[in-house]
C-alpha cells in the first residue's frame, strides 16, 4: 500500500507530506527529493505528446529495495510522488495513475481555498481524508 504521499509544489519543496509509518518521514523526504530528478527527466523524455487533461503520469520512477516510487506531474508543475510498498507488486501503472488523478482532483479543490497563502503548509482536512483513504485503499 502506499506508504507515503507527497505533494511537491513548483518550487520543489513539499507542500504536503503524508506517510504511514510517520517516523520514516525523513527518509521518505530524501527519497522523494531524489526522485524529483527522475520526474523531470521522464517528463522531458516524454515530451509534449502526452499532455492530457489529467496531467502527466510517468508512472514508476524508480524501484528501490523497499519501495517503488511513482510520480505524477500536473499542468502547473506540481508533482505528486508516492512511495508504494514493494511487497505489493500487483499494482499497475493505471491504478497508480488513477490514484494520482483522484489526488489531483482533490488537490485542485484544496487550492480553490483562498485563505491560506500559497506556501502556507496547512493541512486541509478534506484533502487529508482523501489521502488517507487513498493510502489505505491502495493496498
Amino acid at each position, binding site marked *: 500500500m502506499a506508504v507515503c504521499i507527497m505533494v511537491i509544489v513548483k518550487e520543489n519543496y513539499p507542500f504536503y507530506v503524508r506517510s504511514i509509518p510517520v517516523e520514516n518521514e525523513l527518509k521518505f523526504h530524501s527519497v522523494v527529493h531524489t526522485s524529483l530528478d527522475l520526474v523531470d527527466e521522464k517528463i522531458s523524455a516524454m515530451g509534449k505528446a502526452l499532455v492530457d487533461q489529467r496531467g502527466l503520469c510517468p508512472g514508476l520512477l524508480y524501484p528501490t529495495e523497499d519501495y517503488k516510487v511513482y510520480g505524477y506531474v500536473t499542468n502547473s508543475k506540481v508533482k505528486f510522488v508516492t512511495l508504494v510498498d514493494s511487497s505489493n507488486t500487483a499494482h499497475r501503472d493505471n491504478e497508480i495513475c488513477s490514484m494520482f488523478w483522484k489526488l489531483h482532483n482533490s488537490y485542485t479543490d484544496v487550492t*480553490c481555498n483562498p485563505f*491560506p497563502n500559497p506556501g502556507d503548509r*496547512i493541512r486541509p482536512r478534506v484533502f487529508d481524508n482523501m489521502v488517507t483513504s487513498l493510502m489505505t485503499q491502495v493496498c
Partner: protein
Amino acid sequence: MEAAAGGGCGSGPPLLSESEQQCYSELFARCAGAASGGPGPGHPETSRVASGAATAAAGPVADLFRASQLPAETLHQITELCGAKRVGYFGPTQFYVALKLIAAVQSGLPVRIESIKCELPLPRFMMSKNDGEMRFGNPAELHGSKVQIPYLTTEKNSFKRTDDEEKQQETQSPTMSPFASPPSSPPHYQRVPLSHGYSKLRSSTEQMHPVPYEGRQPLVQPEGPSSGGPGTKPLRHQASLIRSFSVERELQDNSSSYPDEPWRITEEQREYYVNQFRSLQPDPSSFISGSVAKNFFTKSKLSIPELSYIWELSDADCDGALTLPEFCAAFHLIVARKNGYPLPEGLPPTLQPEYLQAAFPKPKWDCALFDSYSESMPTNQQARDLNRMETSVKDMADFPVPTQDVTGDDKQALKSTLNEAVPKDVPEDPATPKDSNNLKARPRSRSYSSTSIEEAMKRGEDPPTPPPRPQKSHSRASSLDLNKVFQPSVPATKSGLLPPPPALPPRPCPSQSEQVSEAELPSQLNRAPSQAAESSPAKKDVPHSQPPSKPIRRKFRPENQSAESQEPSTTISGPASGASVKPHPTVQKQSSKQKKAIQTAIRKNKEANAVLARLNSELQQQLKEVHQERIALENQLEQLRPVTVL
C-alpha cells in the same frame, strides 16, 4: 362540547385541590394570557377578560409541557387524553387535565384518566434554560446585560404577573369553556405534539410568525402572522414563548427537526448576510471570487487555518468562488466561530447550499432589509450603532465587544418585539452610514452590523455576532486623501490636539507633518493674541490671510503684512504690537473669566487656523504638482511641435 369534554376527561375540575387550582389557573393564565397578548401586569382586567375567554395557546402550553421534562410520547398521550386534541384547543378544562396528567406522570403514574382521580402533587415544571434563553432578548433590552440570570428573574417576574392575573381569574370557573373562541384549527394543534419532540429549535427559525397573542381578542390565532402584534412591549416573556414556539411549528412544517440549531440561519441573519453579499457583489446570483471573499472574511480576525476550514466547508462545489448560499453559510460559520461555537466537522445540513437556497425566500434587494434587521436592535445596542456609524479606526476588535454586551439573545424574540417598536430613525441612520461605509470602505475595511447577528447567534450563550466594522479610515501617514482635504471638520478634530495653549514657541505641534502648518501656526499664534479681542473677525482674518500668501516659507511676512493691514480695517489702529499691547491690559483688567473665554476662543481660532493652514498647504502642494505637470506637458508639446511642422 364542554360537558362532553369534561366527561371525556373524567376528572376535570372537581378533583382539583386548592393548590392545584391555584397553580393550574396561574399556568393557564400564563399560557392564555400570552396567547391573548397580555400586555403585562398593567392590564390585568384585559388579560383577565382575554384569558377568560381564550384558550391557552398551544405554544406556551407545549412549552410548559416540555418544561415538565416528560418524554415526548408521554406528552402526546397527555394531550390526547386531556381532550385538547379532540377539541382542537387547550381550553381550561383540557389544560387542567393535562396538568394533572403531567403531575401524575411525574409521580410515576401511568398516563391515564384514572391517574388523575387521585390526589396528586403539583406538576413540576422546570423552566429550562431554553425558555430562559428565549426570553433573553427582552431582559437584555431592558437590562442591557449579558447575564443569563436576568432570564430567570424575568421569568419570576412573569410568574408574579400571572399571579396577579390568576387572582382575577380565580373568580371564574375553571370549567368555563371558551365557547366564544372558535377552536384553533386542528392542524395547528397537531403541530404541537410534533414540537414536543422538537427540543431546541425553538429559538432558531427561519420565519418569524409571531404569535397569537395579537390583540385582546378571545380568538387564539396562532396561525395569524401577527407581525404587527409583537411590536408592543419588549417584556413579553410569554409572548416570546409563544412566538418562538409558533415559529418552530412553522419551521417544523418546512423541515425535519434539526438538532443543530446554532447552524440554522435565521431570517434576520440571512438578510444581513445577503446585504453583505450585495456589498461585495452587486449581483445576487453571481459569485464572490475567492480573493474578495478572503479579504472580507479576513477582517473577521479569525485565524487563517480556521478561515480556510470554513471555506472548505462552505464552498461546496469547490470552485473557488462563493455563491450566495455558500456565502451565507460561510458567514454564518464565521459568526458562530466568533461566538465560540466550535466549527463543525462537516457542513451542517442547515447550511448546505441547496437547503439555503430552497428555504430562503427571494430576498428583497433594497435597504428595507437594513431596516428590518436593524430595527431589531435593542436599545442597548444603540451605542454600538454609534460605533458603527463612526468612521474611526476600529476594526474587528469590535467583534468581541458587543459580544460581551448581549448574549443569549433570542433573535426571534427580539426581532418580533422590535420589528415595529424601534423607531425608524435608528435603522435609517445605521443603514445609510453603513451603506456609505460599505461603499466607501470597500477598499478599506468592511462594517459588519452588530445587531441582528448578535441576537441571531444567541442561544443563551456567548457573544454575539460581529459588530459592524466601522470604516477604517486612512491613517494619516497615507497619502493625501482628498476626502480629508475636503472635510475640514475631520482634521479639525484631529488638529484640535495640535494647538497648544497660547504662548508657545514657534515649534508647536505634532501636526500632520506639515512644516507649512508649523510655520503657519506660529505666525497664527502670534497673531492670535493680538486678535483675541475680536475673535470672530480674527478668525476670518487669518484664513483670508493665508490663501493670498503663495510661497509657504514666506508666510510670515505676508501674514504679518496682511494681519497688520487688516487690523486697521478692523478698527484697531496701530501696529500689531500696539494692538496686542492694548487688548492685553484691558484683558487683564477684566475678570479672569473673560480671559478664559478669550483663551478658549483663541484656542478655537488656532484650531481653525491650523485646519485651514493645513488645507492651504495641501492645496498648494497640489497646485505645485499641477504646475509641474503643466510644465511637463508644455515641454512635450514643444518637443512635438517642430516634428509636426516638418
